[in-house]
């Protein structure tokens, strides 16, 4: 019960941080209530800006999913997800984030859609972009509620049931977002990032000692034909590896990251964030991936041994099994909790307790998404359709708070009713969807001749492509690991296929054609609708000459 107690203490601490943020906001006596609540008054300092922006990008997926992926797929996980993000996310902050910040400061934008509406002189097309962005963001919030329920149930040994755990996490996140707004969210994110960073180092040292040193573990893995490939990338094709470099394009297109870019007090605060972002990536991802790989040698731990056994059964006799049996084996082999199991097996209770809190921090990273959706609703819908001019800023903030409560309750309700696997898939679609929306930002900020019709084409294409991938993956069940079901081929080349990890287009993730077609649509449709290019007065706000 000690781990559960530590987790509850942690939850109380983050709630207190949210309330403290509200006290600070009230003391500042800002007369711009909406900007203060939704953007922390555009006043975040360099350290909180770096840690909170990084924390907002780190979801449960980064900590637990990375280890789980590495447990099954080996060291390739780091190259697929970490080193490409370490290059592309800071570059997008440099090129796009700084410009969003400047435009927000100059023209008072609080969401990306506000900027799109002004840039392309469009109203309802902005509403379409809002709807697509919102639909792609909701699964994250549901996943966080589920993660909270599962983690609390696990660390309490089942004494706290899933529905109570999910409810408690929902209440805490809702509480500090409701009271603290962006300031509370940023402070909690910064606190969580520090917790991740500290935990990673301690966990690696303790687990290394418990396993008798990593050298022995690696040599032993290399000696076994079943585990040696996990230390190379031979099971992944170079085309598939390359296609993953498109995924980090989604980061800057996520509304919560775009909105975070507006919170820095000064442009200079981006400098340290851009340079240190890769350092934070390596500090969190290298231990997560390495521990996930090394877990394959922790066969003396029964929980891990049963995962390895399930994986072996799946590989050996997967095609002969029915879907239900395959699904059960897949769930048993899932490595999302391998780091938890390693710490349980090798670390003392106090460290396992801290781990519970760190995992809690990871699964609760939905706060910035909840706040972003609330900001988007109040700014892109409530204010746009004259709510603020009619009722004032105080009512706007209260509407934002009511939206936070409503959204959390809906997410909680869905989390109790729908299986998690559906939302795991949905978050995969979201990454591809937001990457495919990234040409909107590039065109708005760097191409004068882009038009609102190009933006509409990109948005509709993204929604249609995400829906098509979702339908395809639902209709065609996942084959066993390693097998590929060809759906469309031409001249012996697989055009569209289904693998265990999802749909493939020319052996690559669907995000590649989705993003390239988006960019092409922006160019072609804007060229065809050249008369819709905004007037010079508008363009002068975005381009210097």
């Amino acid at each position, binding site marked *: 019960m000690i781990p559960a107690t530590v987790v509850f203490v942690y939850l109380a601490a983050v709630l207190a941080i949210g309330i403290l943020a509200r006290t600070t906001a009230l003391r500042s006596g800002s007369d711009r209530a909406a900007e203060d609540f939704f953007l922390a008054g555009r006043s975040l300092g360099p350290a909180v800006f770096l840690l909170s922006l990084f924390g907002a990008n780190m979801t449960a997926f980064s900590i637990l999913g990375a280890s789980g992926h590495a447990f099954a797929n080996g060291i390739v996980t780091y190259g697929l997800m*970490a080193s490409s993000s370490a290059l592309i996310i800071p570059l997008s902050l440099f090129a796009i984030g700084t410009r969003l910040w*400047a435009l927000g400061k100059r023209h008072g934008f609080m969401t990306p859609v506000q900027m799109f509406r002004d840039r392309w002189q469009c109203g309802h097309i902005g509403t379409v972009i809002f709807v697509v962005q919102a639909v792609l963001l909701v699964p994250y919030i549901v996943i966080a509620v589920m993660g909270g329920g599962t983690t609390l149930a696990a660390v309490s040994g089942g004494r706290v049931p899933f529905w109570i755990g999910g409810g408690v996490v929902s209440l805490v996140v809702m509480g500090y977002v409701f009271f603290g707004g962006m300031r509370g969210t940023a402070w909690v994110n910064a606190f969580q990032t520090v917790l991740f960073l500290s935990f990673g180092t301690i966990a690696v040292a303790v687990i290394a000692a418990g396993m008798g040193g990593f050298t022995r573990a690696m040599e032993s893995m290399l000696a076994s034909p079943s585990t040696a490939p996990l230390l190379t990338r031979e099971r992944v094709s170079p085309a598939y590896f390359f296609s993953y*470099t498109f995924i980090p394009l989604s980061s800057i297109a996520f509304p919560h990251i775009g909105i975070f870019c507006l919170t820095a007090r000064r442009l200079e605060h981006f400098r340290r964030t851009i340079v240190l972002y890769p350092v934070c990536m390596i500090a969190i991802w*290298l231990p997560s991936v*390495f521990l996930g790989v090394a877990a394959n040698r922790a066969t003396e731990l029964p929980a891990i041994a049963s995962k390895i056994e399930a994986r072996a059964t799946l590989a050996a006799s997967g095609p002969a099994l029915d879907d239900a049996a395959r699904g059960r084996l897949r769930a048993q082999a899932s490595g999302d909790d391998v780091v938890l199991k390693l710490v349980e097996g090798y670390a003392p209770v106090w460290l396992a307790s801290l781990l519970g809190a760190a995992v809690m921090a990871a699964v609760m990273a939905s706060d910035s998404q909840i706040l972003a959706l609330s900001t988007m609703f109040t700014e892109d819908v409530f204010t746009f359709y004259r709510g603020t001019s009619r009722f004032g800023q105080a009512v706007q903030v209260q509407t934002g708070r009511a939206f936070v409560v409503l959204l959390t309750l809906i997410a909680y309700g869905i989390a109790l009713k729908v299986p998690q696997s559906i939302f795991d898939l949905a978050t995969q679609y979201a990454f591809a969807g937001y990457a495919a929306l990234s040409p909107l930002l590039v065109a708005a900020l760097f191409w004068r001749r882009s038009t609102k019709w190009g933006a509409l084409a990109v948005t509709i294409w993204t929604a249609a492509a995400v829906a098509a991938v979702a339908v395809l993956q639902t209709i065609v069940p996942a084959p066993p690991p390693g097998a590929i079901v060809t759906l469309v081929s031409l001249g012996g080349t697989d055009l569209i296929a289904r693998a265990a990890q999802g749909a493939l287009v020319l052996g690559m993730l669907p995000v590649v054609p989705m993003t390239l077609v988006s960019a092409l649509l922006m160019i072609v449709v804007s060229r065809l609708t050249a008369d819709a290019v905004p007037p010079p007065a508008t363009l002068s706000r975005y381009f210097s000459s």
Partner: protein
Amino acid sequence: MYVLHQDFWFWREARPLVFGFLPIGLFYHASYTIATAVMLWWLVRRHWPAHLAE
């Protein structure tokens, strides 16, 4: 830097184990991450869009 991410040269190699435990492919990408930080440091130093703050 984008091209260097596609390191086909260590695709099927696990050895040498750097520091006795890091497979060479993982060590390469960890080093790549550090090199990225250095490149970004140079970028913000030399090409910082200071005009945006005006």
